């Protein structure tokens, strides 16, 4: 199995979720994150003190996928997340050794 992680723009979450649904993936885990990269941050001013904020809000999505689906899933996510502007983010996949569904103890593909 693979763990696909995507760090993307927050407002793309809905599109990604729908695209995954359409593909047949019905579970994912989301965390709030901040990213640093090419996309520039912004400046804030408080009583004349100017702050450069260079972290940009992102969300981080994790999806466990069967080996065979992984590549296609990555494409699905990339497509759904894309706006074409700098800061669209990254998607990467890691090899998973074991995956278990807590409720039943099922392992491997059955755990999804």
């Amino acid at each position: 199995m693979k763990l696909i992680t995507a760090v993307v723009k927050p407002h793309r979450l809905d599109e990604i979720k729908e695209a995954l649904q359409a593909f047949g993936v019905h579970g994912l885990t989301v965390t709030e994150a901040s990213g640093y990269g090419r996309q520039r941050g912004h400046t804030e001013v408080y009583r004349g003190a100017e702050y450069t904020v260079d972290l940009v809000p992102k969300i981080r999505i994790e999806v466990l996928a069967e080996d065979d689906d992984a590549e296609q899933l990555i494409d699905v996510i990339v497509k759904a997340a894309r706006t074409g502007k700098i800061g669209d983010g990254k998607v990467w996949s890691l090899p998973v050794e074991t995956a278990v569904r807590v409720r039943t103890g099922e392992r491997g593909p059955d755990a999804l």
Partner: protein
Amino acid sequence: MNGTDTGFVLISAALVMVMTPGLALFYGGMVRAKSVLNMLMMSFISLGIVSILWVLYGYSLAFSGDQGGFIGNLDAIGLKGIDAASTVDSFVAGANGEPHKIAAFAFILFQMLFAVITPALMSGALADRVKFGAWMIFVALWVTLVYFPVAHWVWAPGGWLFELGVIDFAGGTAVHINAGIGALAAVLVVGKRIGFKKDPMRPHSLPLVMIGTALLWFGWFGFNAGSWLGVDGTTARMAINTQIATAAAIIGWLIYERIRHGAFTTLGACSGAVAGLVAITPSGGHVNAFGAILIGIVAGAVCSWAVSLKYKLGYDDSLDVVGVHLVGGVLGTLLVGLLATDGIGGLDQLGKQATGAFSVMGYTFVVTWIIAFAIQKTIGFRASEEDEMTGVDQALHAETAYDFSSAAGSHMSATTSSVAAPVSKKVEA
């Protein structure tokens, strides 16, 4: 000069002052975290702009003399000729039947704060999406061309609705109908938020909404009872009816909501309170306890229904200024025509009330639309799509409302460079 009445009006004025920040918080809690500061500022700035314009010429246009029933004159421009010894008449009369006198400054201050809150009320309709500079210009034009005349019509001797005998104890027509219809016109010009009816736009902090509600309700006692410009039994009646109608409207809103949507919500309770306060504003001095209960229940239930209209009709009145202030204001203004005690109420009075309500609606809608359109076509009213998506707080005000990042350190990289060059002027407000 009557000290008691002057003192009461001064304290009432302080209470009315706190309504505008209260409104800012009420609205601020309802928007998303990315535009709360802009929302706060849209209300709050009215305290800055309108107070000054009121002193410069607003008071004079509204309350000094009369020209054709439509507007005052310029004799009191810059408060010319008014000093600490000047007085105006209270509605309270002495044993001899003569009206009590209160300090003119107290009256001017009290009325100033009505002028302040009225445009602030409109701001909720335009949440999340207008340029702040444009909003400031809008406020200045709107009070000048809309509020000052309408206040004259309704409250100044000589004003045509005043002379007609329209009852508007504390501002149902001049304040709430006026702001509600103005909001509708502005919304039609400015257009919908990106994602309206599609994206979730739930309130980012309901406790903040509750804080705002508390300050509004509290201040409203000054708004309503203070409008009698002194203390007697009518003042007390207005005060108790304010409480009764507000309570009833909470109940009315919640019952409707429970039946229609299955839950008693906090936002519903707060909204109901405001709807009740709006509806009792024009009417509370002239109805008895049952009248107040009726007005409250009706206002609560009807406004609870009315706030969903925007989804059906497709105008994006973001925080329901139309659904609450216009609808609630009209209800209160018409109902007092029917329910007024002391032999005033009846179909005849109802007709006058309707005349008042609809003429203000007509005038204000047209003039507001023109102002908003003119701004839109010249400097632009609406923020850029990118700024709206990012959030107007960051984009227009160069601030973030909250930073709860972990106690032990900020996750932000920032450099304080206050002595360096100002930020790029791309920040456009």
